[in-house]
């Protein structure tokens, strides 16, 4: 297996390995938009009482994935702020739901497998599934060529898979068996940081005979856990008919919950980490949990940037988002850059870690660094140092793309394969000239996409 580029960024503020449960919230703010989903088709009315597990809205663009009510309560449509608010909550224990009848053509064509997949969709477990090649939601009734199960999470501060796997091992192995029952002959690749450990052996022992699992070892180096990179390294080429499915530990646990217990998947493990977090940790929360309450005792003093997702790929959350969205894997809190260091660039720098070895820290063991939102330098023209090319995990040339974009030569940009970029952000991270390469690439990709549409 060949993996190139990558760089392991070590940052202080790693979430602890315990999984905490926060107190029951009084209200829930369910955002109707997340990274992949837009729950635009409302299924309830304003002021309507809803039961736990009831469908609040659907995303018609994504096979109708549902937004489920995580609690009993009264729904308020806060359309302006794009949330569905649940008030007057009661924390009834979850009940196993009647399995809804799958549409006739599905049960006819796919039999019991089709029913199971339909159940995943309706109980909110299918949302955890990705197409490895482009990250989109795959067709639940399609036929994959293989399934990737990743236990890694390398973007700093997202909920770690290994912790969820270890605390809920029996659920995890059962989930793997459920996954196998959805497939015919396709292999399941279980991506682990180390294959030859007692724990990995334990997992394989537990599912032996029930699931055909191929363990795959991947070094802990960002962004080797990216599905597209994993698929490529495993030689799974992209095929629209037979895509590669990919999911993480949370997805396997959701399969177990929905298929074994027939429960709606309305909780998930997220993380809170970063330099602006007090006691970074993992939490079991439900979608819609108010962000303000969640962070009240966990956010450090002073200005802090709240990021939905990891420090390298996430999105800043403004005050308009009130609750955790369905896809959230963690909140990263970064202290804003306020203190301007005096003569910073001549300091020996034993406390800062760099891709280059221009700081004294190169002489000591890698240590986590406390990072803020500082750009840490001035924007300069590209000095052609080549660092961006070295770290790029897909083998394209960011400095070349930058030059071509500057010249506004979009044809050449396409020929330089901007489409291969997975937006990992490493090139922007290492660039000493502080060029916002990643952002530039995102915008250009968008421009190119629009041009193709016209």
């Amino acid at each position: 297996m060949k993996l190139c580029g990558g760089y392991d960024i070590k940052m202080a503020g790693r979430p602890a390995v315990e999984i905490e449960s926060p107190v029951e919230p009084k209200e829930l703010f369910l955002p109707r938009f997340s990274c992949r989903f837009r729950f635009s088709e409302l299924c309830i009315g304003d002021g309507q009482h809803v039961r736990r597990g009831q469908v609040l809205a659907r995303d018609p663009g994504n096979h109708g994935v549902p937004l489920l009510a995580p609690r009993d309560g009264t729904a308020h449509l806060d359309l302006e702020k794009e949330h569905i608010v649940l008030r007057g909550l009661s924390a009834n224990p979850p009940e196993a739901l009647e399995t809804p009848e799958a549409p006739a053509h599905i049960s006819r064509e796919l039999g019991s497998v089709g029913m199971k997949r339909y159940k995943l969709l309706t109980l909110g477990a299918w949302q955890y599934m990705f197409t490895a090649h482009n990250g989109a939601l795959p067709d639940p009734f399609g036929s994959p060529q293989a399934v990737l199960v990743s236990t890694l999470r390398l973007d700093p501060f997202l909920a770690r898979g290994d912790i969820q796997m270890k605390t809920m091992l029996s659920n995890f192995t059962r989930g793997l068996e459920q996954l196998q029952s959805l497939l015919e002959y396709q292999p399941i690749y279980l991506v682990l940081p180390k294959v030859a450990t007692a724990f990995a052996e334990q997992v394989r022992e537990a599912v032996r005979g029930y699931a055909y699992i191929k363990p795959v070892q991947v070094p802990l180096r960002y962004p080797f856990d990216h599905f597209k990179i994993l698929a490529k390294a495993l030689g799974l080429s992209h095929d629209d008919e037979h895509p590669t499915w990919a999911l993480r530990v949370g997805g396997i646990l959701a399969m177990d919950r929905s298929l074994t217990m027939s429960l709606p998947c309305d909780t998930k493990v997220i993380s809170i980490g970063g330099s602006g977090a007090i006691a970074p940790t993992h939490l079991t929360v439900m979608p819609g949990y108010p962000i303000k309450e969640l962070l009240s005792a966990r956010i450090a003093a002073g200005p802090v940037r709240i990021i939905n997702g990891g420090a390298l790929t996430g999105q800043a959350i403004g005050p308009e988002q009130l609750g955790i969205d369905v896809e959230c894997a963690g909140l990263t809190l970064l202290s804003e850059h306020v203190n301007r260091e005096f003569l910073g660039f001549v300091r020996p720098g034993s406390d800062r870690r760099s891709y280059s070895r221009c700081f004294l820290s190169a002489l000591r063991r890698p240590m986590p660094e406390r990072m803020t939102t500082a750009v840490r330098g001035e924007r300069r023209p590209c000095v052609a140092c080549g660092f961006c090319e070295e770290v790029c995990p897909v083998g394209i040339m960011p400095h070349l793309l930058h030059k071509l974009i500057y010249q506004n030569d979009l044809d050449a940009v396409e020929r330089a394969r901007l489409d291969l970029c997975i937006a990992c952000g490493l090139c922007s991270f290492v660039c000493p000239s502080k060029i916002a390469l990643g952002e530039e690439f995102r915008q250009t990709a968008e421009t190119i996409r629009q041009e193709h549409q016209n």
Partner: protein
Amino acid sequence: MKILTQLFNQARSHFAEGGLFCRLHPLFAATENFFFAPSARTMNAPFVRDPLDVKRFMSTVIIALVPVLAVSLYCFGLRVLAMIAVSYAVGGMVEVLFAIVRKEEINEGFLVTGLLFPLILPPGLPLWMVGVGVAFGVLVGKELFGGTGRNLFNPALVGRVFLGIAYPVAMSGNWLIPGSWPYGRIFQYASSTTVDAVTTATPLGLAKQGQFAGTFDLFVGLVPGSVGETSAAAILLGGILLLLTRVASWRIVVATLGSFLALETLLFYVLPTPIPPPQWQLLAGGILFGTFFMATDPVTSPATGPAKWAYGIIIGVTVGMIRHLTGYVEGVMFAILLGNIVAPILDEITISLRLRRLRNEK
């Protein structure tokens, strides 16, 4: 520090758009950001950034030059400082002027150019020539191309070539003999008019006439030559630092020195006239200094890996050929300039090869 912060805060409005000195804003920004880390924050993912910036990158080169500076001060005296001061003053002025005209930021690059330039000059050169040379180098070698990052040639080398053509006698006739134990010339201000201290030939020049200087003398630097090029030991010290910090590309260094040594070994056995052995050649002249500090300049060297190898080999081989197959004594300068010319072509080739490979990628 507090006082300084206040000072900057008070002055800021004068340099802002519409202020009294708004044209001088680049100068203000450069000074401010010299003392205090810039206040910019990340707006998009990735929200964190590596601590390395161009300032640090360039100051690492300057730190790597400290051993060389120390030895040259010892060997050639206080005048070296005067040369550096002139080079910085004139070079800095040109840089600031262009930044103001172009309304761009002042680039750190001139801090390196301004220091490298005097180090490749003969130690006794009149100060006004230093000024003329650096002005030409920065102006023609860099600013006309659009400033740091866009220049084709190493500005210091452009300045040096200009001086070599305009004032050939001053540039090659008078070489200061290094001071001797124990104080060297640390307390002297010796120029080329100090008659008794001057020779007409460097070790490489003498070698052409069949006289070989001692290898040890070459290693520590007790030979006449350009200000910073004489002491192989000091250059290696700085060069290793550059390699360890990844500021200099190891590919270029290995390719240049490797191909140079290979060619020298070949010529040593093949040439009819006796020439010094390869290790002697490596220590003499500007090959080490040029390789570590000039050829590895990221802007004027190729950006892609394979092109770096080819670039290094071209430089190494050219140096050897000029030294032995032409009338010139030393060829490092021309070799690197040649490398600079072909660098974009080499890049072009590797890029097109790589694009061809990428084309079928899924």
